[in-house]
């Protein structure tokens, strides 16, 4: 058995065994256990991968395998990973454990809840390990459906509307992706294998069509302007763990796809047409930041801020320089962990105070110092403070974008850089209103600080952003060679 299938095996076994357990507590512990094993396994796998690499493995993907799925159409379940997919797998594993931990208080339909979040994670793992476009699409879909249910059943506010909107828009995105990959299959080499397609020199006409379809389709997942509107509603209606997955993992499916499939496989079209997405990304960054400024609901705030931050991912990918692509990957990991922390902290506040309106809160640092501090750390990471992951990834993108010569690209970079000022404004406003200040509402005086599971989740996520913030070279070492490969195909 291929070692990568373990990544699917662990969550699937957990999911299935949850079905046979009746005790809610046991289900929670099983979910926690399964996701922790997965995290440990991913860490081990990363170590293993690095040792193989340093032993001189130079293949673009390691641990390759292939199992026929539907031979008449050449559909295989092919696996293979490189550093980029590993960084995404680590991110997913970390966010899932944290998500399980903050969902400890779920009481409604516990079994179904944990079943769905683990199923969702299975989709994400499958997406990151496969090198077959059809399987990729399959897993992308698998990661969409559970979200609809998670929001619709366990959500809050106008959850039906949000769930429907999110599902429809993401379906629209995956429809574009599907059109794109079928175009690649039929107009290309009648293969779904990414590694084979990467070596084909597709005619530019085919590339153009497929690039626009695929990039836009994956763009919907990263909440690219103007297809971002599912994000604010979806995030704010979703239960905490689902928000964490949505922003922490799902939006990364899009970024990963845009890089791995759209840019890598279609380099000529990328050179010709990336300006479209640079413009959209610049708009998303600065306009998302200004829209965030006006939000009063903390979840809406973080959702809009995710639109702005994920704009950096799209910008980095579209700039097509080595540093920018590297920065985009770092930003994906960084934003994934940071936004999960942010949503976790907001969720903890909401669980206690039953409001997410920044102006109704206040004095949280005094009453619940741990949660307040978690919020402040997430905020400081979001506004790009050195020492946290947001800084290194944004700076790498700026350096990379500046390398692309041309006045238009420079303007896009300066616009993106200008957003860091606006980010500071909305983050500090939120901290000023909700976390600092005096307790305005007497009911808040009895609020309890974080429980052990919440503390553990926060500590893990903070460790993630601090690790990247202090030792970004760990991440760049993991993905550096793969960025070189992608870059080489882009300049050839």
């Amino acid at each position, binding site marked *: 058995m291929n070692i990568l299938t373990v990544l699917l095996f662990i969550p699937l076994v957990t999911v299935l065994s949850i079905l046979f357990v009746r005790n809610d507590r046991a289900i929670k512990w099983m979910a926690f256990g399964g996701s922790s094993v997965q995290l440990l396994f991913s860490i081990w796998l990363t170590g293993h991968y690095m040792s193989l690499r340093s032993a001189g493995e130079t293949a673009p993907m390691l641990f390759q395998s292939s199992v026929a799925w539907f031979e008449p159409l050449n559909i295989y379940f092919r696996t293979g990973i490189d550093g980029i997919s590993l960084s995404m797998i680590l991110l997913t594993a970390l966010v899932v454990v944290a998500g399980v931990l903050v969902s400890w208080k779920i009481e409604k339909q516990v079994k179904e809840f944990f079943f769905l979040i683990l199923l969702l994670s299975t989709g994400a793992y499958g997406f990151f390990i496969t090198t077959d476009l059809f399987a990729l699409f399959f897993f992308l879909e698998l990661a969409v459906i559970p979200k609809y249910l998670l929001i619709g059943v366990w959500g809050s506010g106008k959850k039906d509307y949000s769930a429907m909107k999110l599902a429809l828009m993401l379906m629209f995105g995956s429809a574009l992706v599907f059109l794109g990959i079928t175009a690649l299959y039929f107009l290309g080499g009648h293969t779904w294998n990414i590694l084979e397609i990467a070596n084909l020199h597709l005619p530019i006409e085919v590339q153009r069509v497929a690039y626009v379809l695929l990039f836009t389709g994956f763009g919907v997942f990263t909440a690219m302007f103007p297809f971002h509107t*599912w994000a604010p509603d979806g995030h704010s209606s979703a239960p905490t763990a689902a928000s964490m997955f949505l922003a922490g993992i799902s939006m990364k499916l899009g970024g990963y796809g845009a890089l791995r499939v759209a840019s890598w496989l279609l380099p000529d079209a990328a050179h010709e047409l990336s300006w479209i997405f640079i413009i959209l990304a610049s708009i998303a960054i600065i306009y998302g930041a200004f829209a965030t400024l006006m939000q009063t609901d903390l979840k809406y705030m973080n959702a809009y801020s995710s639109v702005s931050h994920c704009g950096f991912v799209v910008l980095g990918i579209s700039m097509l320089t080595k540093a920018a692509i590297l920065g985009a990957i770092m930003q994906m990991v960084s934003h994934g962990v940071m936004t999960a922390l942010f949503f976790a902290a907001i969720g903890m506040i909401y669980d206690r105070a039953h409001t997410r309106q920044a102006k109704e809160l206040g004095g949280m640092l005094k009453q619940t110092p741990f949660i307040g501090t978690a919020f402040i750390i997430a905020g400081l990471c979001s506004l790009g*403070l*050195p020492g946290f992951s947001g800084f290194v990834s944004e700076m790498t993108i700026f*350096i990379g974008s500046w390398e692309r010569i041309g006045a238009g690209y420079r303007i896009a*970079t300066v616009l993106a850089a200008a957003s860091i000022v606006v980010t500071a*404004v909305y983050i500090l406003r939120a901290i000023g209103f909700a976390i*600092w200040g005096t307790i305005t509402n007497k009911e808040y005086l009895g609020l309890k600080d974080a429980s052990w599971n919440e503390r553990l989740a926060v500590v893990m996520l903070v460790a993630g952003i601090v690790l990247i913030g202090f030792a970004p070279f760990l991440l*760049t070492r993991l993905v550096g060679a793969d960025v070189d490969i992608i870059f080489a195909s882009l300049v050839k």
Partner: protein
Amino acid sequence: MNVELSLLILLFLPLVSFLFLSLNGKRLSPALAGMIGIASLSVVTVLSLITAYGYFFEYGSVADVYQKLEPIKYEWLRFNENLSIDLGVLLDPISVVMLVVISFISTMVHIYSWNYMHGEERFQMYYAYLSLFTFSMLGLVVAVNMFQMYIFWELVGVSSFLLIGFYYTKQSAIAAAKKAFIVTRFADLGFLVGILLMSNGAQTLDFGVLIERLSVPSSPFTIAMSTGATFMGMSALAWGLILVFIGGAGKSAMFPLHIWLPDAMEGPTPVSALIHAATMVVAGVFLVARLFPIFAISAPDALEVVAYVGAFTALFAAVIATTQTDIKRVLAYSTISQIAYMMFSLGVAGWGEGHNEGYTASIFHLFTHAFFKALLFLGAGAVIHAVHSNEMADMGGLRKKLPITHYTFLIACLAIAGVPFFSGFYSKEAILSAAFHDNKLIYGVALFTSGLTAFYMFRLYFRIFWYKEAKADHGHGHDNHESHTWAMNIPLILLAIAAFGAGYIPFGHFVSADRSQVELPFHLELAIPPVAVGLIGILIAYMFFVKENVKALNVQQSFGAFYKWAYNKFYIDEIYLFVTKKVLFNLVGRPAAWFDRTIVNGMINGSASITAFSSESIKKIQSGNVQTYALYFLGGVLVVTSLLIYYFQ
């Protein structure tokens, strides 16, 4: 001890102390937390002094020229073939001087806070933040790489933010902390774009290589950057430097980015002494000094911008300082004005012998100012401690109640006013003589400003320690004796000694633009005007507030509208408020949010409605009626056939 190890300890001890104090928090007793902070800072000070001694007298100079040493340098993050962030320690005269200043003042503030902050609820966190600040500031000055500086630059900003907002339940403190961070962030955007521009032009982020490549007129990098495209008449290189200078102007509170500093006085007073007077706010000066060879050799036009911004700010802030009544705000504007002195002093300096006096003078003034300004703030803190108010109206005649504070404050006032034999006299004389030789307009402004400085400082001094006593009817009552202890007195006395004696250091032997050892010239004929102007300023203050021959109020009235304008800080804050609230929030933010909710979202919802509507309309087609289907089928076949015929004809 070997240099590398001692530098590592010097840098990381404050970080360790920060982590330890912040992670343990309330579990430590306040006394222990304070002791840890003070002890680690004392070690840092000793190590900085050892480093300074070693650098200046043992290993630093080769043939009487101080070398740029990089004893520690690690690659931290590589962007591409040429650009990477390296973290390390760069020792050169200015960074070594800064090490001494920062660690010494920080230790004084640590000791002073022991008493001043006694009984505060978050005493442990206070010391943790102080350590964080010290770590960041030390990392900033020893930066080997532009990005290393930027990293610590931001960390310094956040420590300042946390300390200004230390009393985070107070609305005014929250507002001030946000303002400080956001205004400097805005300036940092300039710094960042400047870094991008310059690093792209020079293909390096390393300070040493950058300066080498851009300060030699014949180097291809300099030629490419200074002859290529121009924007508003200035080359890419000049713009890069100006953008970097904007970052410096933000931290150093140059007009028009000064607005955050007076508000930053919301933080505890010892913090104002450390961060907002002696160390962090001179980071901008340090930045310009760091890049000085590029400014002076390759882009004198950018240096001219520095000079004029500095000169204007010096005068502007001094005028405001004469009108303020909150003693900390007077000191804040005085700080802005004094930093502006350092700034234009760099601006009037040039390259080559005989022109670079301004460079030495600027760092000299930075050095002396750190001592007397920290002393002024700590003295003000003692006063505030005694009368529980920042307002001059609540003070007066305190010289008997606070004898130690009184004498040390007087020494600081004499130093800042430039009275002979006190440290400020020597550094200010050097600045003025540099200005005199380069730019008479700036010289005139500086001379007039030094008169104003003497006036407002002695207005402050007489108003606090002489004048008539305030009626104690504001509810707090005065403490009758100097209630503070050794922990507050020792720093006051040590700083007073430094504020008096720092001027006797032959500074030119240590710091000069080309790192050689020079003798700062002393021109008696140039020393007389500032002293005379200063004494006149002191005399006027004396007549106003001690003799009361002239009622200050009458003079105020004779200035009328101008006084009111200056008292309200020339309404700069109101202009900012207008731009941010009215323009950015209401004209950009609100429309963006509205556009998003209504137009973009509307389109998405609209397309859903259209889908719903069209499916509603076409569902009639799916009638289940076989005959109808057959009809459609027939129609379809006909259409396809005719298309095929047409196509293959």
